[in-house]
């Protein structure tokens, strides 16, 4: 590893020491269809990493080396053009629409940018235009309904909570399905479960995803796993999300200002009692102010975006404030070395109330009948409940989470010779969070947990987590051509160092009114620390034949400091083939492009992995404080051979363009098999050992992914397009558990989420009752499979309409079918004697363990996530001081259609451990995503 670092610096030095002569090229890029200028078009000097973007008027200016031969002009939605430079210095280019987008350049999974057409894998890319229709608050919300083959579900409407992000079933029974996430090439903390030491709200757990600094996004790429992720190695089996931020566009400074004002209101859609909303919900104000600045010269560009956001929340104790900024600087140091730096900062603070499996949660208590059947309450009783019970509780809730996060990426791109590009990236993600819960005696008395007059039960819990992630990334790409063959060779290395320090401070019998645990009768503390390093090396080759047929090969080796020399380096290979058959002359001659304009066949095989929980291989004893002395106990049994689980994926698919590219269809069949799957399975109970992570399982996922887009209307004034995706999971099974008994990964004793051979990961296990015609319980099947919370069908859809390029309407939504979930709220209503009629009268006295299956429901849904309408004010209404003024309206979560009697998206059952797997599926005392109505004003100076 030391040698690698040395080599990188040597390369840097070589590069910065050599200079060459430039010449200047200018031009303008317009749309062929309407002649309008195209801003933000990528202009690259082929064979180098030099490039720029067109300004708002479609103009560009770039310095190119004397020996540069050609320029590549590319823009999403348009066919790229390659232009021979020759002696020309001015280029006016008209780009034609191209829904094929095959010449689009993608980076994720390839080391350095590579054309999509050369790939046997698929990369989903979201552009800044697509992002602009959504309020940019947090990454998971932003991506919701925008990725065709990934499902993103937010587990709670409370701020800062975990989400479920998954694509191809579940490939691990040990790790969270959250993909690894990069911002400008730097891996960031993607902990999407509770931390080792964290505040227990009963349900909604805090996540690191919502505070990833995502200001100023240029584009987002997502790869789902399989061969595409092989180059990310032993951590990437769940896929990779890569975020690229704006680097700035050469030209005069351009200032953007955005104001968003809105109302946030709790949805009543899923409520059992509308009175819950009357008592607890309120309409909150949200406001967001964003200032952007970009510009630069042909040598140096800059971009800044800052945002202040505040949201009162739709219920008490959920207010949220955040301050974000990101600044980018790119500079061409000389003909060989280019520098790019990106700095992002995010400060967030938000409140949280208990929920789900907490008897302190007001929402859950109201909804589950803890205070009785609210629908039968008189308005006087409702007022009384609100003023005498709920308000005193809510006035005393004091759970506050504060996160400060700094992230930077520093990269040098070196082009020492034509067709050879090296990139060195170093970056930091530093995240510090504090969760503080102050439970005063007044709060505990208001909850009726303590008798009136109690003075010695108040407590304060503080949980601090400090995460520092360091990324070092080096890769080199060499392009060569030989007769009909083209070669892109990539080698690279990555090193990640993660330092995760946590501590918890508990003070009990705290003096009323204190914010410090210093004022406690007794205090305790815990800490947790883990420092480890993941590193890997890879090489990949992409070989093209006649620019139509491409073969890919890759191999990565990975190591992890937590597992020592016994486990050593793990290898992950990939191989793929893609054939752009529609580029063949026989195809062009036989099939007119108005019928089939594009046909690409692709197939690949690749491996990626997931590391075991760090140090889970050690045989340990534990030392715990017990009655003031240290107490040793048996710890984990350990397994010296513990190694990453390996997910192998076979994938085949086609990309089809029809009707001159107006319609595009993409279909992929995949088959993944996770071998040596890590199961935290129990030993035989008579061993008396705790569960130990072991490589004993095997998991299989199979399915189809389809995505389609159709440009329905493309007239001078009107433009209408529709896109949709459909994903079918035909198999998601634990095919072997290595003989180990099944084990729980969530839920409850009476109805849990389990891992068992022959079942889906996290299948819902409980008794399945059979009732006789008279309603008595005839029999029940104990520990039956009551369904899987992983949907068999899911997808997203979107509609975009524009009129005269001024008025734009965008609608996005997503859906799922074929999954099951538990209506835990109804279980609690049953305890409170307020059950619905799912249990026959004659069986109401049966053990609820035996009839648990009645609470499992189908969780099909279709949710419209976002409707946005914007209008660019005509020039006559705006002052000359403004380049552009846009007003808009956004409605978030406006419509929900669902089969269950609870919100199928939310869940009160998160992962059991830090970074652990979770499948959701327990609708439980947790507020749904609120509805938001936002008015926006965007002004460009």
């Amino acid at each position, binding site marked *: *590893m*030391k040698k690698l670092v*040395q080599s990188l*610096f040597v390369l840097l*030095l070589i590069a910065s*020491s050599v200079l060459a002569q430039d010449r200047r090229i200018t031009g303008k890029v317009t749309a062929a269809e309407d002649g309008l200028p195209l801003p933000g078009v990528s202009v690259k000097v082929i064979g180098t990493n030099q490039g720029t973007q067109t300004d708002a008027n479609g103009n560009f200016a770039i310095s190119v080396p004397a020996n540069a031969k050609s320029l590549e002009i590319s823009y999403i939605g348009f066919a790229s053009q390659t232009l021979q430079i020759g002696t020309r210095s001015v280029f006016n280019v008209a780009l034609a629409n191209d829904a094929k987008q095959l010449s689009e350049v993608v980076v994720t999974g390839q080391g350095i940018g590579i054309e999509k057409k050369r790939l046997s894998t698929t990369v989903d890319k979201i552009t800044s235009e697509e992002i602009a229709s959504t309020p940019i608050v947090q990454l998971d919300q932003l991506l919701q309904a925008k990725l065709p083959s990934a499902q993103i579900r937010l587990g709670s409407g409370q701020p800062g909570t975990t989400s479920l992000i998954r694509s191809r079933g579940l490939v691990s029974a040990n790790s969270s399905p959250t993909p690894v996430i990069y911002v400008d090439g730097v891996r960031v903390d993607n902990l999407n479960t509770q931390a080792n030491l964290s505040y227990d709200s009963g349900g909604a757990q805090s996540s690191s995803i919502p505070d990833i600094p995502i200001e100023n996004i240029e584009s987002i790429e997502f790869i789902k796993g399989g061969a595409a992720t092989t180059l990310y190695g032993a951590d990437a089996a769940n896929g990779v999300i890569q975020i690229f931020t704006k680097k700035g566009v050469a030209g005069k400074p351009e200032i953007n200002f955005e104001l968003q004002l809105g109302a946030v209101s709790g949805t009543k859609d899923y409520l059992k009692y509308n009175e819950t909303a009357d008592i607890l919900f309120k309409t909150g104000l949200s406001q967001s102010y964003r200032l952007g600045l970009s510009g630069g010269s042909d040598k140096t560009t800059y971009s800044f975006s800052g945002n202040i956001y505040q949201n009162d929340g739709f219920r008490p104790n959920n207010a949220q404030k955040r301050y974000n900024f990101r600044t980018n600087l790119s500079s061409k140091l000389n003909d060989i070395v280019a520098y790019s730096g990106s700095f992002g900062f995010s400060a967030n603070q938000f409140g949280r109330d208990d929920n789900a499996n907490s*008897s302190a949660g007001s929402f859950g208590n109201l909804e589950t009948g803890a205070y009785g059947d609210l629908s039968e309450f008189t308005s006087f009783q409702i007022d009384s409940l609100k003023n005498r019970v709920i308000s005193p509780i809510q006035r005393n809730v004091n759970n506050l989470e504060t996160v400060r996060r700094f992230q930077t990426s520093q990269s040098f791109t070196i082009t020492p010779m034509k067709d050879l590009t090296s990139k060195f990236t170093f970056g930091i993600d530093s995240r510090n969070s504090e969760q503080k819960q102050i439970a005063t005696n007044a709060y505990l008395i208001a*909850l*009726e*947990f303590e*008798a009136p007059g109690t003075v*010695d*039960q108040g407590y304060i819990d503080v949980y601090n987590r400090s995460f520092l992630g*360091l990324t*070092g990334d080096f890769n080199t790409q060499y392009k060569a051509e030989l007769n009909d063959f083209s070669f892109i060779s990539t080698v690279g290395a990555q*090193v990640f160092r993660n*330092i995760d320090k946590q501590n918890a401070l508990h003070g*009990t019998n705290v003096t009323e009114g204190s914010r410090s645990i210093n004022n406690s*009768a*007794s205090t*305790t503390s815990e800490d*947790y620390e*883990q*420092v*480890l*390093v993941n590193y890997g090396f890879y090489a990949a080759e992409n070989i093209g034949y006649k620019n139509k047929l491409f073969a890919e090969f890759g191999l990565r080796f990975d190591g992890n*400091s*937590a597992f020592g020399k016994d486990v050593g380096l793990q290898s992950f290979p990939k191989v793929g083939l893609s054939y752009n058959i529609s580029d063949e002359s026989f195809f062009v001659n036989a099939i007119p492009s108005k019928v089939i304009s594009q046909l690409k066949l692709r197939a690949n095989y690749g491996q990626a992995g997931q590391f075991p929980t760090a*140090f889970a291989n*050690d045989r*340990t*004893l*534990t*030392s*715990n*404080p*017990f*009655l003031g002395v*240290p*107490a040793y*106990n*048996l*710890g984990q049994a*350990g397994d010296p051979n513990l190694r990453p689980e390996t997910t192998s994926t076979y994938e085949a698919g086609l990309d089809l363009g029809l009707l001159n590219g107006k319609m595009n269809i993409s279909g992929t069949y995949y088959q993944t098999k996770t071998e040596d799957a890590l199961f935290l399975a129990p030993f*035989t*109970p*008579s*061993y*008396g*050992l705790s569960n130990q992570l072991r490589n004993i399982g095997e998991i299989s996922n199979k399915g189809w992914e389809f995505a389609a887009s159709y440009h329905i209307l493309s007239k001078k004034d009107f433009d209408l397009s529709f896109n949709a995706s459909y994903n079918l999971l035909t198999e998601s099974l634990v095919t072997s558990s290595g003989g180990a*008994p099944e084990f*729980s990964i969530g839920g409850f*004793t*009476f109805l849990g989420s389990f891992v068992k051979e022959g079942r889906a990961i996290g299948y819902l296990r409980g008794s399945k009752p059979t009732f006789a015609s008279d309603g008595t319980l005839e029999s029940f099947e*104990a520990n039956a499979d009551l369904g899987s919370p992983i949907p068999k069908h899911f997808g997203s859809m979107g509609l975009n309409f524009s009129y005269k390029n001024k008025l734009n309407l965008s609608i996005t939504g997503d859906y799922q079918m074929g999954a099951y979930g538990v209506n835990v709220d109804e279980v609690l209503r049953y*305890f409170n004697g307020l059950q619905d009629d799912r249990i026959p009268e004659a069986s109401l*006295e049966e*053990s609820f*363990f*035996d009839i648990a299956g009645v609470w499992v429901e189908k969780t099909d849904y279709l949710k419209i996530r976002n409707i946005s309408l914007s209008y660019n004010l005509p020039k006559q209404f705006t002052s000359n001081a403004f380049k552009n003024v846009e007003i808009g309206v956004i409605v978030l979560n406006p419509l929900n259609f669902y089969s269950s009697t609870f919100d199928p998206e939310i869940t009160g059952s998160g992962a059991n451990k830090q970074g652990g797997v979770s499948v959701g599926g327990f609708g439980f005392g947790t507020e749904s995503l609120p509805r938001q109505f936002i008015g926006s004003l965007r002004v460009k100076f």
Partner: protein
Amino acid sequence: MKSNIYKIFAASLLIFSSCSLLDPTEVVNPNLTEDNILGTGSAMTPWINGMERQLALTYNELIVVNEIASDNYANTETYYNQSFDTPVFNNTDENVNDVLQTISRLRESAIYGLEVVKPSDESTTPDQEAELYFYKGLSHLLLAELFVSAPAEPDGAPVTAAEQIGMAVEAFKSALDISTNADNKVGYNIALARAYYRIGDKPNARTYANAAISQGANYVRFIKYDGLNLPANEMQVALVDRGSFDDLQPLPRLDFLDPKYYAITATDNSNVPLLKIEEAHLILAEANLSDGITGLPLALINIQNALGVVSNRPKSTFNDQVDGRTQDDPGSRPNEAGVTVAAGPGEMRIPGLVLERQASTVTVPTVSGSSISSANVTLVNYPSVDAALELLYLVRQEIFIAEGRRFTDLGLRYPVSYNEIVSNPNINEGDPATVGQIPSFIPKAKGMDSFTYDKDEGTAVITTNMNKVLVANKNDASIMPFIN
């Protein structure tokens, strides 16, 4: 060009020399490995502390479920096991698994202490070694008391209760032999008496019971809990700490004994009696009763002696208003001092068994309590063996409430768990060990917890007097080991 080469050379030197500062391979492992701990050479004292902690964890797994399965407590609404309240024992039930696992863990921890920790720590004392034998013996005793049969070692074939007791006795005797701690030895004697009682060995049970009484007239050994650093007392959690949940509710006949555990302070939990001298008296009483009418007078004296100890046990007074009796279903359970309770239909209505739950304080015994006055334990009142047996089992029920003991007195036994069956090569589905034991005289469908309550009249009548049922079935092999 030449100058560039110099620059590169200079920079390379710099990088080489600075690389030691950039070393990325440093790791911090939060674990204490086995080698770390044993390497200290002084692991035994913390290991013994850990055994106490493990004991607390073990009892946390079994007391709540044992009490639910018995007639002592009804599980009114919570996620604590509902099937056991019926009672139904499926080998697939997670609690069955947890009970087996946690007792096995207690045993394996003790064996680890003897076989691994002791050799690593030259300062190990005989008293510490004795304690390890005691915990090992206790694990076998618990398996004998709670399971039809169960493995006595990892992946072992299930062994009968008698065989488990054989191992328990051997371990307890080893403890007794090497211990120099007089107090602990009283406990070892009680444990031996309890073990011999389980297999109906009257002479040995008497011997060790008498030895215990002679050495520690007021002896009690507790399972200790740590409300600050955990484990907290799970039975206390179930009884009172879950605030607005009603959770476990006692049979009205036992209301005055509840809650035996409460939050002494915000961080001090109540401890649970593990072994107490009352048991030695009660074993002697049962031994004498099993001798027939000739033993009756002696048995009554034994019971009087037990009650004499009980009368000196501490009581605590605290506010219990939050521990609602009737919050979930108002008016469904007696919660006022004026209520009289009949132990069964047609039986005498007894006053004073129900406490005024909403009074500013309640006073409850924390080690042992009984509704029976020693003065009333006379031949006149209990003229027959059966009458005395019923009294004995009531007193046992009262004294051991919330300690997880009534389960065994009722003849209930768990099966080994499904996880054991599928992964232990020496057990097959359908083996006797895989089926639990619920004697035929146990009422079905929560019948043991059932009672009628007339709030207006202030009377509660328990549907089944289980102590009477036990006596009526005293020849059933599953109960009363001295008789069968």
